[in-house]
């Protein structure tokens, strides 16, 4: 079996599909450069990115798939999982080989995998929309640092831009080292230099505004008062708010 090695970008993935149709090598294995281990017995092909090829495949996909499926495709790509790249590759080949409407065949492993991975990414996106807690900084910007499981910043951009149209805000992905900054006009991608000691998830005293402490306390009070002790159900609570998200939540800070 031949191995295709690509650079992990969406363009690379689409070029790999293009190469496959040009060479028709049968079953292949798709890996990213980072995960690639050379193998003594099988040949490998390095995919070189060419915008023209990628564009052609992308346009082809858009004519064959409805919008909702293009979104699922994109979401699956953003999951950054190795298995997801393989699924995307196989799915795309399957769509181009099969009849129009093949994406509805949930009996196919890759179609199902794509739809399930997309749900995972959408869930993470929704959780970020829910669990992000802005802190009002001394300079008037609302800041929040996150480290989501998947690369969801591109997906949550519009939501926050529409919702917080009259305040400047920053959402920073600490794991992937980039963030979004809204300056009342447009959203920009930014990179920041933090020093290693600083807690980038929750900022502390000198950098936040003086009102911040009061509203954090009020929110904690509210969270406590809204609870009905007679109905306590920790299992359900943790199911809805998994512990790995507690670090974002103002109400869970001591």
């Amino acid at each position: 079996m031949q191995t295709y090695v690509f650079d992990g970008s969406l363009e690379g993935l689409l070029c790999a599909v293009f190469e496959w149709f040009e060479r028709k090598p049968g079953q292949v294995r798709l890996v990213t450069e980072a995960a690639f281990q050379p193998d003594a017995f099988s040949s490998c092909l390095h995919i070189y990115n060419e915008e023209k090829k990628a564009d052609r495949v992308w346009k082809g996909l858009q004519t064959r798939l409805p919008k909702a499926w293009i979104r699922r495709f994109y979401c699956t790509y953003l999951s950054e999982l190795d298995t997801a790249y393989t699924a995307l590759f196989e799915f795309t080949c399957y769509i181009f080989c099969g009849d129009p409407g093949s994406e509805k065949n949930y009996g196919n492993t890759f179609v199902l995998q794509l739809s399930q991975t997309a749900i995972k990414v959408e869930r993470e996106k929704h959780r970020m929309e829910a669990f992000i807690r802005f802190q009002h900084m001394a300079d008037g910007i609302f800041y929040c640092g996150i480290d989501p499981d998947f690369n969801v910043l591109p997906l949550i951009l519009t939501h926050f831009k529409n919702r917080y149209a009259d305040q400047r805000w920053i959402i920073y992905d600490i794991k992937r080292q980039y963030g979004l900054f809204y300056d009342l006009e447009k959203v920009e991608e930014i990179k920041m230099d933090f020093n290693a000691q600083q807690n980038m998830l929750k900022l502390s005293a000198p950098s936040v505004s003086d009102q911040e402490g009061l509203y954090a306390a009020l929110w904690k009070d509210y969270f406590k008062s809204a609870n009905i002790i007679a109905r306590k159900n920790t299992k359900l609570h943790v199911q809805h708010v998994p512990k790995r998200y507690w670090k974002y939540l103002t109400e869970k800070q001591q």
Partner: protein
Amino acid sequence: MSERIREKLNILADAAKYDVSCSSSGGNRKNDNKGLGNSHASGICHTYTEDGRCVSLLKILLTNHCIFDCAYCVSRKSNDITRAAFTVEEVVELTMNFYRRNFIEGLFLSSGIFKNADFTMERLLRVVKKLRLEERFNGYIHLKTIPGASEELIREAGMYADRMSINLEMPTESGLKLLAPDKSHQDVIKPLGDVQRQIVQFKEERKLIRSVPKFVPAGQSTQMVIGATPETDKEIMHTADAFYRNFSLKRVYYSGYIPISNDNRLPLLGSQPPLIRENRLYQTDWLMRFYGFHVNELLNDANPHLDIDIDPKLSWALRNLQHFPVDINVAAYKVILRVPGIGMGSAKKIVQARKFGKLRIDQLQKIGVAYNRAKHFIKCADSPYQLKDYQGTQIKSFILAESQSKYLKHDTSQLILF
């Protein structure tokens, strides 16, 4: 100043927590004035309390002073508790600052009745007007309609609120008369009907003239207390069904009664709230609204109560084994929906996927069907051939033997003899 507002928030949030509704879905207000807030079609739960209920709105009472003396309510006149009241500015300030930090989706504002209904409603109206007009707030607002308030006030409030609700409190008139002699279902039905008529009227006008303002775009809801008075599940669900049909309600909430006083008309202080029963009622509610079941199929004179140990769909299937097994490769979508262990998502996937070939057991499992439950009711491409027809009770014991209720602390399953 900050100490006082913390104290008020504690008192008034604590009094409001027995209102179950916290949904923020169905709003369609867009942020087109460069203000704050933009509604999210499905709503967002920003956190969950330790009892597992979602928190998406800042749910508070304007005041817990009340002229009524309803036995089931913490804010009743005769109860000896600390009373407090927010000013209009305080509520607006809290809402805006919480919303800016992405703590909440919006505001749920209710109130005890002080002086009279109109006076209270007018206060609530002032809060929403200030939020919408002065602060340009486009978040979600859920407002309580105060029974007995004038139609003009309710109509004006509806122009600014996303959802309005009035609580039915007790599922039957007799139950309500027992615990709250001053109230009747008629007080609820009239304003519900008024708002409903206006929603329809505004919608009709909007079809002709696009600039007609929105009126309660997320519809109305109501709430019933369960387990305070001895109603059967049948009475509860028939009442709910009638309200869904007559007032096109978006939701009916069922709230298990949590004992708060030593009144001899009510369950004893310290007794467990009926959580499983509440869960079963919600399941029935979903079956009625999304799965095409009629309330009479699930609850009738022969079966006035829901099974506690199995869910209502399974218990319906066991009573009606003549409809099964269903061949999932040919059956209609509506029939597949009625199979225990298959939900809406799986049913839709099955209907689309079977066009490409007959579905097998492994595919069904991957699609997300709870196969251990569904296998007694379906046939697919490679179902094992089965000579014997099992009785409903046998199937029930098979299913119970291999599943564990999340409500049971200890396993109490009995040995099967046959």
